[in-house]
């Protein structure tokens, strides 16, 4: 049985009207300019340029070892760039030690101080700022309410559950009111259910505070749910930046298409491209593939067609001949409750995934293994990838 990740789109987070990056006159809060960081022979961050705007919820997404955490640590000041520069609110951060930077970080391990109580942990940064005692107490109470830990002020970290510790770490990082909050895999240690809940809490919190959040995660779902924009990283470089929907629907490479969500990739030669429609020849469909694509693609080159499983229709009776039509038999399927994913083996031997919403509880004609099926998809469901 195979399963597939179910991308959830546009749940609450995306404020379509919020797009400061589209305003060329606006000064970004943080600017990475050609930043490179090497560890020995390894280049962890390779010539990265990136702008993050005030009040933005920005996600750095990529597999482990892609350099996303290093990029965040460069901003926090725990690492020093080998080349390039980082500015925060127009100020060059070069040479500024971590304790002077107006950003706070929530660590993946939480890094709570075990000898201090919850309230002392939260007050830690405030004390460093030299805030008067009375104000500290008020701020701590405010923070405890914010993260709903009111009754646990005097507990020590080892007396808390994982979720409670996570919220203490969050409160501790927010308390000093930083210009920017850095979250390093903030939900990785939580179980699935709690993780999903917390994602929405993070969004609510960010919107309420209006604070700029930078989150580092390897979980594409987490990034898509929470972030205004996602930067997908690979081997020290950013391969695509965009809103979650943009990155999902119009990935700029096979890597991004494959990393975010599930995708079926078909290789083929471009036979026609007029700036609107691209046609490709393929052994799997005599009529070839057709896709809407306004980017320039040169005829005769090799390209890949990317089609998400949920955008493929599954037929038990042969549809009429035409482009984007595939024939095969069911090799495997996975019932997920809301969706069923089918793995269809084409005559050529390659497999294609198709997802079908279980719209009705009773299916008139259940699909079983080895059933002959046909797959079709619309030209606007496919994306042409040249790299």
């Amino acid at each position, binding site marked *: 049985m195979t399963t597939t990740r179910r991308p959830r789109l546009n749940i609450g987070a995306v404020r379509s009207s919020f797009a400061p990056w589209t305003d060329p006159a606006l000064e970004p809060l943080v600017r990475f300019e050609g930043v490179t960081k090497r560890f020995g022979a390894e280049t962890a961050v390779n010539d990265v340029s990136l702008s993050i705007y005030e009040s933005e919820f920005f996600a750095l997404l990529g597999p482990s070892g892609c350099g996303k955490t290093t990029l965040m640590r460069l901003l*926090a*000041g725990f690492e020093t760039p080998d080349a390039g520069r980082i500015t925060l609110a127009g100020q060059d951060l070069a040479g500024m030690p*971590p304790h*002077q930077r107006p950003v706070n970080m929530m660590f993946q391990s939480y890094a*709570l101080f075990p000898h201090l109580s919850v309230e002392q942990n939260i007050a830690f940064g405030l004390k460093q700022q030299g805030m008067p005692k009375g104000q500290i107490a008020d701020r701590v109470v405010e923070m405890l309410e914010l993260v709903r830990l009111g009754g646990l002020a005097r507990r020590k970290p080892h007396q808390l559950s994982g979720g409670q510790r996570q919220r203490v770490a969050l409160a501790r990082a927010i308390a000093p009111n930083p210009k920017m909050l850095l979250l390093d895999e903030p939900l990785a240690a939580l179980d699935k259910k709690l993780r999903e809940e917390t994602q929405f809490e993070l969004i609510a919190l960010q919107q309420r505070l209006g604070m700029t959040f930078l989150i580092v995660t390897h979980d594409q779902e987490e990034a898509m749910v929470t972030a205004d924009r996602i930067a997908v990283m690979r081997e020290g470089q950013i391969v695509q930046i965009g809103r979650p929907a943009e990155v999902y629907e119009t990935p700029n490479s096979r890597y991004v298409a494959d990393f975010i969500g599930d995708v079926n990739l078909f290789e083929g030669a471009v036979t026609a491209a007029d700036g609107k429609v691209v046609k490709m020849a393929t052994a799997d469909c005599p009529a070839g593939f057709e896709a809407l694509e306004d980017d320039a693609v040169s005829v005769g080159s090799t390209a890949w067609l990317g089609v998400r499983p949920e955008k493929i229709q599954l037929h038990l009776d042969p549809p009429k001949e035409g482009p984007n039509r595939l024939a095969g038999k069911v090799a495997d399927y996975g019932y997920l409750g809301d969706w069923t994913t089918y793995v269809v083996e084409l005559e050529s031997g390659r497999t294609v995934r198709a997802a079908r919403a279980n719209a009705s509880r009773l299916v008139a004609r259940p699909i079983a293994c080895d059933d002959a099926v046909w797959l079709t998809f619309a030209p606007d469901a496919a994306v042409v990838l040249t790299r």
Partner: protein
Amino acid sequence: MSARPRSGLAAVAPFLWLGVFFLFPFFLVAKLSLSDTALAMPPYAPRVDWSAGFEGVRAFFAALDFETYARLTSDSLYIAAYLSSLKFAAVATSLLLIIGYPIAYGMSRFPPAQRQALLMAVILPFWTSFLIRVYAWIAVLKPQGLLNAALAQVGLGPLNILNTDTAVYIGLVYAYLPFMVLPLYAVLEKQDQSQLEAAADLGCTPSQAFWRVTFPLSLPGVAAGALLCFIPMVGEFVIPDLLGGSGTLMLGKTIWTEFFSNRDWPAASAVAIVLLATLVIPILLYQRQQQKMIEAAQ
């Protein structure tokens, strides 16, 4: 994890150990301290006359008394020796902390591979006889010794250190340093580096991070190291005897004098019992500290 009920030998072994190696000798010494000296083999009385049966045992207990303890309190020399021993142990413990902490801290900041080598270096002196190492200090500190030869090279000295309290402190610090460094290293090495980063992130300079995070977190190690050194140092004999001067007054020496010079086994035993009683508090503290560390590690 809850404790499993233990049975059989496993349940009895600790008590057996305690009984054979602590309680039994303790009662022997306690009994001795209630006896009187005598010209006999061995040189104390009373001894149980088993042939007289119950009457013999009764006579034995009737002859025990606290006279020796009364003498301890009436002679200021003993009190002076106690206070002096406590002072030596306390000052040496402070010096050990001041010297041992930076060493343990430095070690814990090396990459793990090199830490092993450094740890080895700390333990290495144990491979040589303790006595030989203390004798080596005599060779260094004596008037015509290595230290004064070196000082003479740069036109200084000579210093008369051997047979002074200074020499005792040098010896104590040298001999007990590993016992201070190892527990400190154990706690410092375990420290999560991200806690230091968190402290820096929240506005601490490196030294503020040390005092607000590293140091408080290392307190169990400080307590363990301090007690581990303090307790045996109070009763230390060899170092004050070899490196100290005649004026170096310590309990270990007092016990030796009572036992050997005065052939007064009861007095030696009484001093030892009082020494143990004085040390019970720090020993219990140490036990509690160990317990806490074990719990914290779980």
